């Protein structure tokens, strides 16, 4: 199983530094959720690990450098499910999933039989085999998210990055996608690093949380250690109540502030 290590990551856009030296470890087969307020640098961190944004510092996968190496080899180590994937007009599900085989195909080459086998296996695993010939535009949001995940899995990389994987989905599809990732982590021994907005889901599905604030890892640890009302207030500026579900999971519930008249009560007449 692949261990992901990040040391002293500094990165930004132009002169604007977003990450100010982030250290992060994800053990082999572990799921770590990166949480933090908007603009904290969650997506930037994932970009750096995926290698699409140049950075200072080190990214290692099982001890081997994963940044500063050839694009092709890096994409065999790290696969990414972007937050807003570009969906090419008119492309079929199978063709799209086959794009995930690019790291194994020479620039001038075409897919081999083994690439096709991998794509079909992934489609079957994600219950998409009946949709192979469908056009991407004809899929629902939940199906599309699974197809994007399928493309990342076709890369057969030991580290999977998820950038807000459930933002656009309803509660049923959120659960479906996260359960799927959880299963795959077990069956394929994948190491997962996910930027997550929903604190309750992050607490529920990940093994550990890393709280990123203004480009620095402010806290890291188990959900009950990181998700305290005090920490959430300080960094998100939100009043929350931390509850426990009957199953023992941490639940973060926003609390309505008193003293602000609701628009309904001061409204008409």
């Amino acid at each position, binding site marked *: 199983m692949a261990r992901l290590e990040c040391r002293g990551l500094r990165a930004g856009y132009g002169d604007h530094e977003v990450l100010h030296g982030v250290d992060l470890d994800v053990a082999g087969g572990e799921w770590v959720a990166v949480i933090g307020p908007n603009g904290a640098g969650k997506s930037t961190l994932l970009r750096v690990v995926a290698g699409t944004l140049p950075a200072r510092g080190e990214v290692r996968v099982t001890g081997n450098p994963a940044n500063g190496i050839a694009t092709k080899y890096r994409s065999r180590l*790290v696969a990414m499910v972007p937050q807003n994937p*570009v969906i090419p007009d008119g492309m079929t599900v199978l063709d799209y999933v086959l794009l995930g085989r*690019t*790291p194994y195909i020479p620039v*001038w080459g075409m897919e081999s039989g083994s690439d096709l086998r991998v794509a079909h296996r992934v489609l079957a695993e994600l219950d998409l085999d009946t949709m192979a010939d469908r056009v991407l535009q004809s899929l629902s949001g939940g199906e599309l998210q699974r197809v994007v995940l399928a493309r990342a899995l076709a890369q057969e990389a030991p580290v999977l990055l998820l950038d807000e994987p459930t933002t656009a989905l309803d509660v049923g599809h959120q659960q479906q996608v996260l359960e799927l990732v959880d299963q795959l982590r077990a069956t394929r021994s994948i190491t997962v690093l996910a930027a997550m907005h929903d604190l309750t889901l992050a607490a529920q599905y990940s093994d550990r949380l890393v709280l990123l604030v203004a480009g620095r890892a402010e806290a890291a640890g188990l959900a009950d250690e990181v998700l305290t009302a005090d920490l959430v207030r300080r960094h998100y500026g939100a009043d929350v109540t931390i509850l426990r579900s009957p199953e023992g999971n941490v639940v973060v519930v926003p609390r309505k502030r008193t003293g602000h008249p609701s628009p309904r009560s001061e409204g008409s007449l």
Partner: protein
Amino acid sequence: MSIPAAVPSSMRRRSYIFGGLSLMAMVILGVTVGPVRIGAGAALREITDRVLPLSVDSGLSEQDAAIIWQLRAPRVVLGAMVGAMLATAGGAYQGVFRNPLADPYLLGVAAGAGLGATAALAAGAGADTLPVAAFAGAVLAVGATYYFARAAGGRRTSATLILAGVAVGSFLAAVQTFLQQQSSDRIREVFTWLLGRLSASTWSQVVTVLPYVVVSLAVLFAYRRVLDVLSVGEEEAATLGVKPVRARLVIIAAATLGSAAVVSMTGLIGFVGIVVPHAVRMVAGVSYRVILPLSMVVGAAFLLAADLLARTVISPGELPIGVVTAFVGAPFFAVILRRREAS
């Protein structure tokens, strides 16, 4: 919103067969149709005799054989190369910029070649220096576009490159207009060149253009899968193991050099680079693995068909081929725009 249907592979196969048969038909018509009629059978026998290691008596007079070999064959071969090159380069540009309206002239090839040719004519240079001047102008113009886009910090975004192309193109067009004003006595020659022509095709032109077209088409053909990968955008392409900036540079360089070479020989033949890849896309689907090779074949057939029209409509006179391609291309372009709006 209308959802495009996936194209079955049988449809793709049929498209290749249709494209190949059209091209063959156009080649045969191209060598037989003209002021001197030569029978298709005799022409085929003559070609078989010369090209294949077979000895067949065509029954053609020496004069008719010369018409085929010295006038029509080079014209057909050059026309096919130009059509294949412009259509494939257009398809590649559309892929690399993810912009369905991109064509091979997007980054300044046309404006640069036009200015090069105009400057050469204005300076009193002979017709034989025109291709060299046009080629130099085209390559310099695209170089300038790339330079300005980089200087603007837009190395990584194709939108900056397109905008830089617009700026360079407008500037060069202004200089060209000025030069035309200054040397109005040669303006007719400039216009003839700008509208494109295949009428004076020779084997030496074919031989000059051939290496550029072969190398360019080979590179674009090799990169057809990479173009599919680039369709998910540069950032995602990078996570899939493609170097988007380098891939884009290779594809643009190949498409530009090939287009500049054919444009410098035949003048500006418009719309082929847009019409053909879009027609192919409508029939055979969105994958560049199909669009590029099929555009080569259909582009060649399309330009030969346009050339047939150009030399028969007002026979014995000839229309500039650029007029014919624009006449067919512009309405088709409007149809594409309507379809895009509708979806």
